[in-house]
């Protein structure tokens, strides 16, 4: 069973009479525990697609099933709950909460989104801090961390509530090449360790080479339907 399945998926933005088609009918499927990349030129629809997979936005046509749920059926509140339970996010600009330490940023979803008991929470946060190699930086605030360190914390935050799917829209765009490469490595290591599916987007050809399955988006379409590369199976 696939984790994400899109059938003839479309998304058209509308401003009054003007319609901007961003996704023009795509079909793809993503298996559990895969490491997937969407690439394409600027404006090709990568962010639009990832937003829909992340249940942040609704399709205007076709169907999109994430973990077996047709996301068109989710209202605002249900979508928020669905994201909190199943999906982790890594952002281009890290988006850590500035007033919280690394530890507290990772802990945040376990407090504010899910309600884990304190002891279990602590174990989980420490485990992820160690997994992303930030155990010795636990008490630093975001403004005391480098970009790479921030993104490591962000990856830990995305994984902390045992998400089955992590979406990362251009997670390396604000990092230098070496750091970018190491973040992608970290994500793949996390996939191996936790079995979480990672879907990310990028412009960078070297980064896209790290993906096991690559979909190329061009002007809202995926010309080469199946995607390049072999699908990883657990």
């Amino acid at each position, binding site marked *: 069973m696939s984790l994400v399945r899109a059938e003839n998926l479309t998304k058209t933005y509308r401003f009054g009479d003007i319609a901007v088609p961003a996704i023009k009918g795509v079909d793809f499927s993503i298996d559990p525990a895969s490491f997937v990349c969407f690439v394409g030129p600027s404006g090709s629809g990568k962010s639009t697609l990832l*937003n829909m997979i*992340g249940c*942040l*936005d609704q399709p205007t046509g076709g169907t999109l099933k994430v973990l077996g749920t047709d996301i068109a059926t989710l209202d*605002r*509140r249900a979508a*928020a*709950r*669905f*994201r*909190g*339970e199943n*999906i*982790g*996010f890594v*952002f281009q*600009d890290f*988006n850590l*909460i*500035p*007033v*919280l330490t690394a530890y507290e940023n990772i802990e*945040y*979803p376990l*407090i*504010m*989104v899910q309600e884990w008991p304190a002891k279990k929470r602590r174990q989980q946060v420490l485990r992820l801090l160690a997994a992303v190699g930030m155990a010795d930086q636990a008490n630093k605030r975001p403004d005391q961390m480098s970009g790479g360190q921030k993104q490591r914390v962000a990856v830990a*935050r*995305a994984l902390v509530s045992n998400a089955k799917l992590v979406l990362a829209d251009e997670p390396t765009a604000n990092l230098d090449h070496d750091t970018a490469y190491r973040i992608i490595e970290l994500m793949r290591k996390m996939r191996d360790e936790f079995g979480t599916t990672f879907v990310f987007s990028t412009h960078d050809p070297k980064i896209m080479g790290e993906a096991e399955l690559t979909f190329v988006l061009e002007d809202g379409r995926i010309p080469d339907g199946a995607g390049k590369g072999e699908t990883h199976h657990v």
Partner: protein
Amino acid sequence: MSNVLKIAARNLLRYQRRTLLTSLLIVIGMVAVLLFMSVSGSFKAIMIGQFTDSVLGHLEVHRKGYVAAIDALPLNLNMSPQAAVKVEEALKQIGDVETWSPRLKFGAMFSTFVETTSIRINGIDPQREAAALPLLSGRLGAGQKSGPLLAKGEIIVPALLASGMKVKLGDTVVLVTTNRDGSVNGKNFTVRGIMEGLSGPGGRDGYVHIDDARELLRIPDAEVSEYVIRLKDMTHLNAVAKQLKQALEGLSNTEGKPLLEVHTWADLSPFANIARMIDVLTLFIKIMLVAIVLVSVMNVMIMAVYERIREIGTISAIGTSPGKILSLFLCEGLMLGVAGTLVGSVISMIVIYALNIWKISFVFGQQQTVVLSPSLGLGQVVAIAGTVIVVAALASLQPAWKASRMDPITALRHV
């Protein structure tokens, strides 16, 4: 919940200067209101006390129509002895009544054998009058305050009249009056005391013993012009007034109309209007405080939401429910209110304490200096603090609501 508070507190500390300025505004507002309330409250209490405890009592009972004609001191509107007995019986029944004093009032000519003028006289029972009006003897001149208020054959002269007529203690004066039947009668008195004036009704009255008054007026029966009533607790004023009215309702004249009427001190004194003005002023100052808190907290919270749009987008994307986001921002505004309130209350208490040590005094009319002793009831502080906190919460409600309704994609894209 404690985590929401923690995050809210950290966010407030992140913008230290802004938080400080806003709380300062709330603190200043709180202090202004609380100080105004305590000082004006103290002023009001002292002034009201002067009237109730040295002239008017808390309540007065008259025959119907007497108060309307009080300037003429009409002898034909006195209460009959039977009615007076009924009043006293009724007063005995009411637990809140501490004591009462009957008065027989009349107008007379006051003569020093050299000069003559008119005077208003209260015939009083010295013991009862002193008990019902504990501050009355305090208005007597220096050296005259101790001992019984008055003995038979003695008169207390108002200071204004004494200085104008050059009357001294121990002088013999004569009172001449016309009684109800139109015949004239006179009697000699020794000046026992000179009483400081007090602006307002009864502030310039002379006092003689009620028995002398009856003799002078040739009233053999125990007629009474008015009863001055002192309550144990002035806060029960209106309730007791009502109770007394009901108790006296049974007494009616030949036409079946009520014979007696009950007035509170406020009905009889023009100072009641000043007291009311003070209350209105207090209300306006409270409204200002509400406005200050509302505008300043709303302003900071709107800024806070605007500056953190991307942060809101982030926490919303990772699944924080709208309710939690709302509570995060609501807590921030609430904490501002609570912090300002706490500091404001503490500063106010300290200042009020200091005012009591320094003893602020002022002179009222011809009276001896009155020392203000501002005080604040816990209830008043709690009410103001509660208002500020509620207003702070209301002020953050709109920005917090806006934050909780934000679309995560739009918020995340915000630069």
